[in-house]
Structure formats: structure tokens, C-alpha cells
């Protein structure tokens, strides 16, 4: 009597389907990905229920790091260049056009006026949170005021040419930055008649049961759901 022979099956699995799925997902991620912007100064922002996406172009960003140091950044190199030019004349810094250009293309500006000349020679790798920042601690010598004044006057010229060239002022503060520095940043803005500005936050869901939540519910899907 012959024993029933169990047919030996191959252990190999067809990989084609899995490969298809893997590459489908890969394509999705490649297309949706947006790299984290290279941040020179690490800042942990607080979260809020605000659902408006922070502006990504035509902005002037003031960063306030955890030590209360202020840094300036903008995506508009020509505007930065003009503002630097103005400050250079006003404060007699003696910067050459080459140095001004170098400063304008730097990702952040974070030093006092007197050090700008030396700062323009710094390599990009040296731009980190060890920088002293723009002096704002002292109310009498709040250099951010001078910076904002220069930006405002450059903007005024721009708007006269093109009414749509409005810049958004963004404030990006760290969780543990203290109020006195924050207050001096705001003072620098309000004294230059910049009365409206945006504060960068992490998105956060509206807690259910609260008034805003009820309002959003009654308005239907009017309030966009917060991502993340």
C-alpha cells in the first residue's frame, strides 16, 4: 500500500503584489512630502487651535529662542538687501555692497549692528543657537526697532510700486521664552505701526464640548479640521 504522498508546496510567495503596494505608497510619499525647512535655531512652538496655515512667502520672521535671543529672517532677499542698505547708511556701519549681499542671503541675522561686518564672514555652519541674537533685552537699545523701521520703509516703497507686495510679520517664539523679551519684540513692532502680526503655533484640535467646538459644529464643516 502506497502512502498518500503530501505534495510539497513551494514556500515562495509571489512578491509582485507586495512590490506594487510598496511602490504605490512610495510614490504617494514622494509626491506629498515637503521637507522640513532647515532650521538654524531650534524653537519649540506652543500649540493653539488656530487653523490658519502660517504664510510661506513674503514674510519677515522674528524668532525668539529659549534664551530670549531674537533672530531675523525673511524669504525676500532683495528686501533684506535694501533694509540692510538703509541701516548701513543710518548707523554708519561701513559695510561694502558685497558684505550686504552676503548678509542678505544668510538664513538668519542674529547679532548687533557693530558685529554685522564680522558676522557677514561667518560660514553657514556657524549660524546656530550660540549666536548672541539681535539686542532687544535693553528697552533703550532695542535694535529690532531699527530693523523693523528699515523693513517698514522698504515695504512702503514696494507697495507704491505694487500694491500686492504686502509682507506678513511672523513671530515665532519658543515655549519657554520669557515675557520681557517678548514684550520688547512687540514694542519694536507696534512702534513701527505694525499692529497686526501672526504667531506661529503647532496645530491642535479644538477640545470637544467647548464653545468654539459647538460653534464649529453648528456651522457645519465651515471650520476646517485641524491636521495632525
Amino acid at each position, binding site marked *: 500500500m502506497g502512502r498518500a504522498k503530501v505534495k510539497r508546496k*513551494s514556500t*515562495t*510567495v509571489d*512578491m*509582485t503584489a507586495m*512590490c506594487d503596494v*510598496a*511602490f504605490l505608497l*512610495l510614490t504617494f*510619499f*514622494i509626491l*506629498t*512630502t*515637503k*521637507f*522640513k525647512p532647515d532650521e538654524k535655531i531650534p524653537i519649540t*512652538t*506652543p*500649540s*493653539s*487651535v*488656530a487653523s*490658519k*496655515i*502660517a*504664510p510661506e512667502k513674503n514674510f519677515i520672521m522674528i524668532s525668539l529662542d529659549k534664551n530670549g535671543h531674537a533672530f531675523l529672517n525673511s524669504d525676500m532677499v532683495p528686501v533684506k538687501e535694501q533694509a540692510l542698505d538703509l541701516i548701513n547708511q543710518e548707523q554708519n556701519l561701513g559695510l561694502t555692497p558685497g558684505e550686504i549681499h552676503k548678509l542678505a542671503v544668510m538664513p538668519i541675522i542674529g547679532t548687533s549692528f557693530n558685529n554685522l561686518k564680522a558676522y557677514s564672514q561667518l560660514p553657514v555652519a556657524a549660524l546656530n543657537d550660540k549666536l548672541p541674537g539681535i539686542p532687544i533685552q535693553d528697552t533703550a537699545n532695542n535694535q529690532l526697532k531699527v530693523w523693523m523701521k528699515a523693513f517698514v520703509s522698504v515695504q512702503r516703497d514696494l507697495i507704491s510700486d505694487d500694491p500686492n507686495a504686502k509682507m506678513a510679520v*511672523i513671530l515665532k*517664539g*519658543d*515655549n*519657554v*521664552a*520669557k*515675557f*520681557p523679551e*517678548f*514684550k520688547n519684540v*512687540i514694542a519694536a*513692532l*507696534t*512702534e513701527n*505701526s505694525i*499692529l*497686526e*502680526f*501672526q*504667531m*506661529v*503655533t*503647532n*496645530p491642535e484640535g*479644538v*477640545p470637544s464640548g*467647548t*464653545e*468654539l*467646538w459647538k*460653534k464649529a459644529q453648528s456651522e457645519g464643516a465651515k471650520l476646517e479640521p485641524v*491636521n*495632525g
Partner: protein
Amino acid sequence: MAEMDTSSKDTGKKGPGVKKGKKMSTRVDLTPMVDLGFLLITFFMFTTTMSQPTSMNLKMPDDNANTKEQNVKQSGAMTIWLGDKNRLYYYDGELKADLSNVQMSDFKAIRQVILDKKAVTPPDDLFMIVMPGNNSTYKNIIDILDEFSIDVVERYALVNKVDTGYSANINKMDAIADQAGK
């Protein structure tokens, strides 16, 4: 490991003198390709930023313009001090000189306080004043402004000058709270 032998099916007749080319399998082992695919997926998943930062709008009054002083009714006003170590102090209406009407709170409990105040005040009179102390952080300010938007408080003001009088009061309250060990 992932070899599949499919070329073993020899169905053709083999004559003695017929030389037949060996039939090669057209199948390719896809395992390394899948590995690579998932490796790249992992990479993109980690580098991608799903949530974009949002922004909160803040409008400040113009210090220079001679705007009409806003009339705030004492009955509808509530002042919130931001103290040290994420502490909050609040009082209704006018401050008593001995600070007897100042109450302590925190960021969880303040929601109910604001809602209670809102419930007993006509909507036009409700006004919140935030006075941050020197030891309060940026997060505290954002949190309290966020709390206003959560509770749909339309009228509020952020005091942008540290007055020695009120900062001394906040320090006093902080000292009391420290002593109480809270």
C-alpha cells in the same frame, strides 16, 4: 530563499539527437525590490511634515494714535495675571489694595472661570485683560489667548508694558503660592 523553480516542467519530447536550449524562467525575484521600496517609504515617512505650522493672529492697539479710551465696565472686566510656574491669578472688576479679591488658578481651571464670567455678563460688557508677569513665558501668553478663542471671548487686551505696580503684585502672589507649596 525566494527561489521558485518553474523550469522543471519539461513537456517537450526529447528526441535523441535534438539539442534543446534550456528554458530559462522569466520570473524575477522581487524581494530585494520590495525591500528597497519599503526602505524608501520609511525614509519619506520620517522626513515628511504632515502638519504644517499654523499661525495665530494678534492685533495690538496703536500706542501713538490718540484713539478714544475704550470704556470698560468694571462689572464686565476680568483681569488675568500670568505668574511664575504656569500659575494664573484673576480678579473681577477692580483690584482691592490688599489683593483679597485675587484668586489663584491654573490653565486647566481657567476655562470654567472664563465661562462662568461669560455666563453672568452681558456680551457687550465682557472684557478680559491679560497682564503677564516678568516670569511668565511665551507659552503662557499663547495659551491664554488660545483659551479666549476656545471660549469665544471676542474682547480682550494684552498689556504690553510691565508696570512696576502690577508686577510687584504678581510677585507677591507668587510668593504666597510658593509658600503654600502649590
